């Protein structure tokens, strides 16, 4: 693979991008033509004296020679070289790394209960899916919660914690977490009693059916609240109670009451999360939540992994693709503007700027890394390191790296007596999965910016695993073309990215 790519945009302009040097630029059409000429195993001494590019123009010898010189100039400074190996094909996760991740944990999420006062059709724990433990209306034990907090507190206060008062979210998840508020209160009181070298913030994902009872508790404890709401009453049609009745009016009243009673809490601590399906659209969700509550929601698709075979047809009927839906809208531009960083196009462009353009550095430390001239030892796939972003503790004490993956991938467990995490076994498990995908990652053109999680690959435990994120050269060029097209359409976004955006 060579490091320099030439791309044309929807508008017919050409750009070049060098993956190693992270340098891009506008390319004169003749410059792009010469690149393709050389790519087809031609040498520049075979270039004719004059060139006629159809629909573009006629170019003389002097102009041709100039762009050959520019090509040679860029080559001299490292462009057009062999593409650096981006994946460390020998990468081995070690227990030390996992220990370090826990000492710097960003989010500890408790499944407070698996009971829920709603019975949403598409719920990750409902009929569509078979990759979760049986729901038995259980409550997480206080002792188990304390055990895992103590286990982590020791690491947070050790010299492995490399942050000064680094932020850790302790999050409450369900089922419906408001069905077990006494436990939440106990956990908060316990954490607050500890002397931790972490800044702790609390958060919760809730359907808000019990919000009228507990809003004061949430406000008093500054619990960041993520409200699940799919839009207006019709849009919310899958969010029904166990007798199949709509809960919309009650939810609406509860949320309105919170907004009116605690306006500053609502402004600072409340966000909305909607699921996209066949009873709503991005446009409807956005316009309803924005108009009623003044918020821009995050919108997610139905989870496509772990679906029961017999439910695939029903799932497909219910499922809606975010990108297709937003592109179908007559108000595409306004929607993208409103969604801003949550829009899929903008998210893609952010990643493009962060990975490929040489202008983004996460911290001072990154400024010392000479990415241009070194291979980056990236591990295979886009899977987070275990506990690199979060730790999820289920109601049954199972410990997972994330709440979005199947319960069969438990990495350990916690009981009222002990925490059982065998870091060597966890390393082995990840390394086995990486081994399966190493070759595909090594040949993938988008391995730099991969976001594919191994736990969401349906055949990860089969002998041969196919990565759905695998990108060949044509697909990669299409991706780059979309990025430069976005840049031409929304050039003002670049400055916004530089000045205002913060990425987790």
């Amino acid at each position, binding site marked *: 693979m060579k490091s320099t790519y030439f791309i044309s945009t929807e*508008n017919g302009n050409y750009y070049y991008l060098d993956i190693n040097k992270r*340098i*891009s630029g506008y390319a*004169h059409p003749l410059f792009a033509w010469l690149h393709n000429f050389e790519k087809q195993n031609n040498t520049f001494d075979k270039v004719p004296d004059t060139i006629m590019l159809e629909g573009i123009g006629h170019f003389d010898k002097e102009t041709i020679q100039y762009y050959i010189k520019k090509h040679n100039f860029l080559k001299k400074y490292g462009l057009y070289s062999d593409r650096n190996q981006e994946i460390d094909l020998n990468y081995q996760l070690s227990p030390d790394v996992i220990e370090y991740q826990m000492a710097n944990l960003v989010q500890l999420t408790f499944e407070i209960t698996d009971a829920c006062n709603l019975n949403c059709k598409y719920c990750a724990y409902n009929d569509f899916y078979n990759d979760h433990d049986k729901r038995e209306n259980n409550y997480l034990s206080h002792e188990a919660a304390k055990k895992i907090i103590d286990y982590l507190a020791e690491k947070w206060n050790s010299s492995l914690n490399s*942050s000064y008062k680094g932020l850790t979210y302790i999050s409450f998840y369900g089922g419906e977490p408001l069905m077990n508020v006494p436990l939440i209160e106990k956990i908060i009181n316990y954490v607050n009693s500890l002397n931790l070298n972490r800044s702790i913030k609390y958060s919760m994902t809730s359907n808000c059916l019990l919000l009228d009872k507990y809003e004061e508790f949430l406000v008093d404890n500054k619990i960041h609240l993520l409200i699940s709401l799919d839009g207006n009453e019709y849009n919310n049609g899958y969010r029904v109670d166990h007798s199949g009745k709509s809960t919309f009016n009650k939810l609406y009243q509860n949320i309105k009451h919170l907004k009116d009673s605690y306006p500053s809490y609502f402004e600072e601590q409340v966000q909305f999360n909607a699921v996209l399906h066949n009873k709503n659209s991005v446009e409807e969700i956005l316009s309803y939540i924005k108009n009623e509550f003044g918020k821009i929601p995050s919108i997610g698709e139905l989870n496509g992994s772990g679906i029961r075979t017999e439910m695939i047809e029903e799932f497909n009927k219910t499922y809606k693709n975010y990108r297709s839906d937003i592109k179908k809208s007559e108000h595409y531009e306004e929607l993208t503007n409103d969604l801003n960083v949550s829009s899929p196009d903008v998210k893609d462009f952010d990643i493009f700027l962060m990975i490929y353009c040489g*202008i983004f*550095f996460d*911290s001072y430390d990154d400024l010392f890394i*000479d990415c241009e001239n070194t291979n980056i030892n990236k591990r295979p796939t886009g899977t987070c390191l275990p506990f690199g972003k979060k730790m999820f503790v289920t109601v049954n004490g199972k410990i997972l790296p994330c709440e979005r993956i199947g319960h069969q991938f438990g990495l350990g467990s916690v009981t009222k007596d002990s925490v059982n995490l065998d870091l060597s076994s966890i390393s082995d498990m990840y390394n086995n999965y990486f081994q399966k995908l190493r070759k595909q990652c090594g040949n993938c053109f988008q391995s730099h910016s991969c976001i594919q999680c191994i736990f969401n690959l349906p055949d990860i435990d089969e002998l041969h695993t196919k990565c759905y994120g695998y990108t060949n050269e044509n697909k990669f060029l299409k991706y780059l073309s979309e990025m430069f097209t976005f*840049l031409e359409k929304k050039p003002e976004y670049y400055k916004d990215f530089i000045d205002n955006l913060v990425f987790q």
Partner: protein
Amino acid sequence: MISKRKYWLYLDSYSFILSNEKIAIIYNSLSSSKIEVSLNGKLGEIIKDLQLPKNMYCVGIDETELCDKHIGEFVNNLKDLFSGDIVETSLCKEKPTVIYPELKLQNQVKTIDSFDNPEIGRNYLTYLKELTIYVTGECNENCNCCKSAYKQALFCTKNYNTVDFTNLIDLLTKLNGTGIGNINVLGGDMLKYPKIDELASLLNKIPIRITYHIHYKNICNYFENIHKLTNEKSSVSVKVNFPTEKEIINIVNTKLIKQNIPHNWCFLISSEKEYEEYEKICSSTNIENTEIVPLFTGGNIDFFRNNVYLNKEDINAINVNRRELFMRTVINTNNFGRLTIMSDEKVYSNVNFPTIGRINQPLYELVQNELKGGKSWLNIRDKKPCSECVYQLLCPSPTNYEYTLDKVNLCSIND
């Protein structure tokens, strides 16, 4: 009426526009070529327009403007140095856009309010790159530069303090998870440290490069044991100041070579005469791996003006790539990530500034103290006259010499 040809004038994304009120430099961060232009007149307007974010490094010009002597010359220079180009607008359906080079550093200390954001403190320890420890101040020599040299360069200094060995052990056990790749050990005469053998044994076990900085006159008493200090990842830096005793240099050099001790020589130079003497020593003793370090004595400003101050020629010879240039906009590349522990156990981010804590404080707390209230790591060329100088970002970060001379800059351009 014949319509004028129109062009898009654009820069490449590796070209920086460095400017002050009067002039601009188009700096090519691949080749380091520079085009200097005055910001007067029509060309000045074009440069200013290129700098506007909304224009994304691309502006329209027409045939008449291209015939202007200054603009035409500028465009030719841009093309010749491959820093930019023009393209007829008829060849583009849409205006070209270029991702101009502007640093996006997500977690940085812009204001003191930044510290309300816990993300700022994330992974602080990895910022640490180098530790310098003055283990003892004890020394039998009486060098004239003893109280000044260590504030200008890595050099020994004498006093009555000694670091407690248990505190040193505690410190060394805390280095796991930091980005520290080098440790410098100095004194006084560091060989007089009561636990020097134990310390060396400990240091040799950790996977970090160690340099022992020893005055050439002090090294003679330790030859029997010097091999205990070093292994494949450690070395000795032999410090020399004038007046020198050539015979001792000869002996030290011979013994270090004989014992196969990895080493280099560091000479403090405060005058042309000393430099000549240094050259004589080099040729007559066959010492190798030497470096010279300027020493400001208070009475040798002319020596500094002639040999240390940067002039325009020096600056024009500077090659910095895009990342290095970005670094100079936010950190002091000489100091960032470095901590010095003096023999009284006080910790400094730079010995020219007040202490930021003590040896037994958590390392992340020391980093926090420096980033929040320190004067070293984030000291960049953002004060007058540097802040108004077009070369501001090409110039190296402020050094200890600026602090010693109590000057913002050491250059003949804005002296």
